[in-house]
């Protein structure tokens, strides 16, 4: 007796209902796919279309003539400087957010969940005030005649007010305040997901608490940290209000140049080309981050 195995694709002669069942399967798949349509349409209309328009527009001059001058202009010193400043500020703010935010997230992750949830309100609190209000509040605190300098001078600690604002320092302080929750939230979530048993296992292997933190907890929290860092850095690249108000005119960021191109020169093409460059650079950074941390699900834990 010989037995042949049917190829999975070819059905034996008598295969009752095979066609009907296949059609049913195909119909179900189509129905499922159609569920994504509204979302896809929305993304197309509010994301793909405007970005395409942005690209298109960036190749036209102020008077509507097709040109590459919008891109050529970016080689001018002021744009190069702005570009460098943007990354410098974003890098500094991100670094400060990491240094300030990591311990906070760590503390919250160690606390009982209820208490942590309560304290989290204070982390999120800044979200509930407008950026403009927060920025002006920093002016009140930081300027020469502000609260901090007044205290320090009155206490005799300094004789001249410190230059805390209208410079890079002021911009970084103001932006860190705005950005900190964006670092803490994903970081906290990923730290919560780290099973405390790993720290016990490390201790059991002979690791001091410091070693266990450095060699086990820290690496395990990196995906969350990367998500936070990526988020903060990319959001910083597009910052406008805070650097404009706290930088004293000295700190020029890319987004401020975009705004100038529209509101001062009325040159949408030039503004679009700046936007395109920022978009591309942001994309490259996100891609690099993804590669660097090999996280399948950016923003989640492993």
């Amino acid at each position, binding site marked *: 007796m010989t037995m042949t195995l049917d190829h999975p694709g070819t059905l034996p002669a008598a295969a009752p209902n095979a066609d009907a069942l296949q059609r049913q399967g195909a119909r179900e798949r189509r129905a499922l796919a159609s569920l994504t349509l509204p979302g896809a349409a929305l993304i197309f209309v509010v994301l793909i279309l405007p970005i395409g328009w942005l690209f298109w527009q960036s190749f036209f001059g102020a008077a509507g003539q097709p040109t590459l001058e919008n891109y050529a202009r970016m080689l001018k010193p*002021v744009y190069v400087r702005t570009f460098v400043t943007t990354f410098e500020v974003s890098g500094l703010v991100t670094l400060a957010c990491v240094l300030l935010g990591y311990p906070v997230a760590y503390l919250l992750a160690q606390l009982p969940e209820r208490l942590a949830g309560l304290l989290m309100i204070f982390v999120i609190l800044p979200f509930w005030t407008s950026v403009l209000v927060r920025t002006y509040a920093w002016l009140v605190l930081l300027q*020469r005649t502000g609260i901090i300098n007044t205290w320090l001078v009155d206490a005799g600690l300094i004789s001249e007010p410190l230059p805390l604002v209208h410079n890079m320092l002021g911009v970084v302080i103001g932006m860190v305040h705005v950005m900190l929750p964006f670092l803490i939230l994903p970081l906290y979530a990923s730290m919560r997901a780290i099973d405390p048993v790993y720290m016990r296992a490390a201790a059991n292997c002979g690791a001091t608490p410091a070693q266990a933190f450095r060699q086990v907890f820290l690496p395990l929290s990196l995906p969350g940290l990367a998500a936070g860092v990526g988020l903060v850095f990319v959001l910083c690249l597009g910052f406008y209000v805070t650097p*404009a108000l706290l930088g004293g*005119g*000295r700190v*020029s960021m890319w987004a401020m140049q975009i705004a100038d191109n529209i*509101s001062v*020169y009325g040159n949408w093409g030039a503004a679009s080309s700046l936007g395109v460059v920022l978009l591309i650079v942001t994309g490259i950074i996100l891609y690099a981050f993804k590669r660097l941390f090999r996280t399948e699900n950016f923003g989640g834990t492993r």
Partner: protein
Amino acid sequence: MRKSMKQGIIAAIAAVGLSTTAMAADTLTLAGLGGKVQEDLTKTLFKPAAEKVGVELRGESHDGLAAVRVQVQSGAPGWDVAHLGAEDCAIGAAEGLFEPIDYSVVNADGIPERARGKDWVGTNTYSVVLAWRTDKYGDNPPKDWKDFWNVEKFPGRRAMSVYPQEMMEISLLGDGVPRDQVYPLDTKRSLAAIAKIKPNISVWWSSGAQSAQLLKDGEVDMEAIWGSRIAGVIADGAPVKFTYQDGVIGFGCVAILKGTKHLAEAQKLVANIVSPEIQARIPTMMGYYGPANQKAFEVGKFPPEVLAQSNQSPENAAKQVIMQPTWWAEHMQDVQEDFKNLITQ
């Protein structure tokens, strides 16, 4: 029931259609930059002017020349007249966005030449002035921009605008250029002068509110600031004074959008807006601005304190430089970039 409803709808549509036709006949649409300023300008200038012409006035707001450009390019602008900053008027005129002003209808005798063009005309003025803290300088305050640039004689923290308009002008004045030789701007000399004062500029302000706050809080001792903002600071009781000496007069303007269906009415509206009679309302109703038409001071009778305060009273106007919008229209972007490059260095 169904039938009567249908008839009702048709009737409603017809009524709407009728009313739009009616609007087209005697309504003019004027688009401005919005906010408190447009409100005040409407009350002071636009509304009374429209009444004189005998048309209804509809107000709209835009966010700059780009919006006006879009309206004109559409072929059938929804606005008849736009109120803009003078540089935008000059740029728009160069682009051919406006109808020429009919100067046989619009009497521009009292309006300085720099404050009008072939296609546009100034409506209101403001001044950039030198202001200082009296608690810092007491009886020996800086008198003009030369003193602003003199850091040995007048030490102290200074503030200027982050935008080059008017700042370039005052830098040349500070560097010793006579008022009548400011234009065309010597940008090289101007930037050199700004580079010189840069170490003493604590803040480059980017909004009017910020500029007022800086002086009010004593964050700076001396500042180039819009005269319209100073009034509020002084009214708040801050120890601050200012001078019109060497001030730079800038202005707002109106232009008629190319393709408007109501060209004749629009010309008449513009004529009335800049007429001495209506311009004379500015010194009392909008004390922080000045009229564009000098003849306003011949028509109106003002008490001395109003005259002393107004930037366009003959005595004050004589001390100042009138900004040349056409120069800025040509050089805006390059100058802005060089200026920004310098101050962010």
